[in-house]
């Protein structure tokens, strides 16, 4: 097989990833462009071209393209999912570091070997680094790191590897957040915009660290079902609920985006129900996470309708 034949075969295989209808309409044209774009390329640049085509094909096949409603929902979830995963990783890394560096830290009684500590912190790095890359506007690097972090968590979940004592629930949450962030159509998540970076940075600081502050302040002494307990358990949904409120109260609300934002908060339902394994706890967590989101959706819609009514009334027409 000559090099030309080999390349033709690769392109043919990549085109087979497209849904048949799309392939029939655009396959020939895409093959032509791909052949011209990859002429003279080799190694990593060639691999990137192939990966770009494969990603486009799979996005269309899974209906997660930027023109699909599901793609737009996931795009709405992506920045919040990335920030949530980074937020959780940041707190995990701080916990392990503090356990070693601060003798009075509650977990200092545990003996962490340097190898364990290094591994536990290394596991959080892809997520933190992905967020740093996103904040720096490096979209491609952020996606590669996210992919690596998600793949590792999926492997850890399937192979039952728990390096830093993470429960299956936490792993499941991280996998869900990672998948939401990775699956978003890249053209709908533009980290080159300052507003995007500001959103991701703010959500990273707001999603999990306040829970740590709350628990540290209260010394973990608050009773189950008390207000601080409820607040610490529903907290991850509060920043997302605020965003849902802002989106839905806008004059022309992007409902799919709001749905995506709400979706990004749902993985947190499973994280905090580790301590009590009961139907009551599962229901309680679901209510605690979903209530702020539903409340924000209703309030946002009410604000929008009220504003529209006022504007269409005598005062608005005047």
């Amino acid at each position: 097989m000559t090099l030309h034949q080999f390349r033709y075969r690769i392109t043919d295989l990549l085109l087979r990833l497209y849904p048949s209808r799309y392939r029939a309409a655009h396959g020939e044209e895409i093959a032509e462009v791909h052949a011209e774009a990859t002429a003279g390329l080799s190694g990593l640049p060639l691999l990137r071209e192939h990966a770009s085509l494969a990603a486009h094909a799979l996005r269309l096949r899974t209906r997660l393209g930027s023109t699909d409603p599901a793609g737009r929902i996931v795009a709405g979830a992506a920045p919040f999912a990335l920030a949530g995963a980074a937020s959780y990783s940041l707190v995990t890394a701080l916990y392990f570091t503090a356990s070693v560096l601060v003798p009075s830290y509650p977990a200092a009684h545990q003996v962490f070997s340097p190898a364990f500590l290094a591994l536990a912190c290394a596991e959080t790095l892809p997520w933190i680094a992905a967020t740093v890359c996103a904040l720096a506007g490096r979209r491609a690097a952020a996606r590669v790191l996210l992919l690596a972090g998600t793949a590792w968590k999926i492997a850890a979940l399937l192979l039952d590897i728990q390096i830093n004592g993470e429960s299956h629930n936490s792993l499941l949450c991280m996998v869900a957040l990672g998948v939401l962030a990775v699956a978003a159509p890249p053209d709908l998540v533009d980290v080159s915009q300052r507003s995007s970076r500001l959103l991701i940075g703010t959500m990273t600081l707001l999603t999990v660290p306040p829970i740590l502050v709350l628990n540290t302040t209260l010394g973990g002494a608050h009773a189950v079902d008390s207000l601080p307990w409820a607040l610490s358990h529903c907290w991850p949904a509060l920043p997302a609920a605020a965003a849902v409120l802002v989106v839905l109260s806008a004059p022309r609300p992007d409902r799919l985006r709001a749905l995506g934002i709400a979706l990004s908060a749902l993985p947190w339902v499973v994280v905090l129900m580790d301590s009590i394994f009961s139907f009551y706890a599962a229901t309680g967590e679901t209510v605690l996470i979903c209530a702020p989101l539903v409340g924000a959706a209703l309030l946002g819609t009410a604000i929008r309708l009220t504003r529209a009514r006022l504007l269409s009334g005598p005062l608005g027409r005047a």
Partner: protein
Amino acid sequence: MTYGRSMSDRQLQEPTRLVLTALADAPRHGYAIVQEVLAISDGQVRLRTGTLYTALDRLLQQGLIQIHAEEVVDGRLRRSYALTGTGRDTLTAETRRLSLTVREAERRLALSTRPGRQARRQPGHGFGPGTVTA
């Protein structure tokens, strides 16, 4: 975050803006758009095939571009794309918005280099000829 839905009534994302710019003077086929974007961005943006067709799919759906012609070259289909009237209007609005931002940035930078001057607008003055919020 900029999303597809809001793209037409707010700012365009860079690849989309570059694709529309590449089609502003003449219809072009896929690889010609890639080459044109590379030239426009001074070699900074090289659209990969998947990215190009993601953008083209969306622009077609939004009615900002249309298929201009289909021809067979060396036995292969070559499809060229052109701006629609809406696409031209969108690009014009975006260009105006960017021009205002550039002009304002230049004005402030010029002020900041002069000692004793502050880059602050007087109260009541808008942001350029029309107030633009991004």
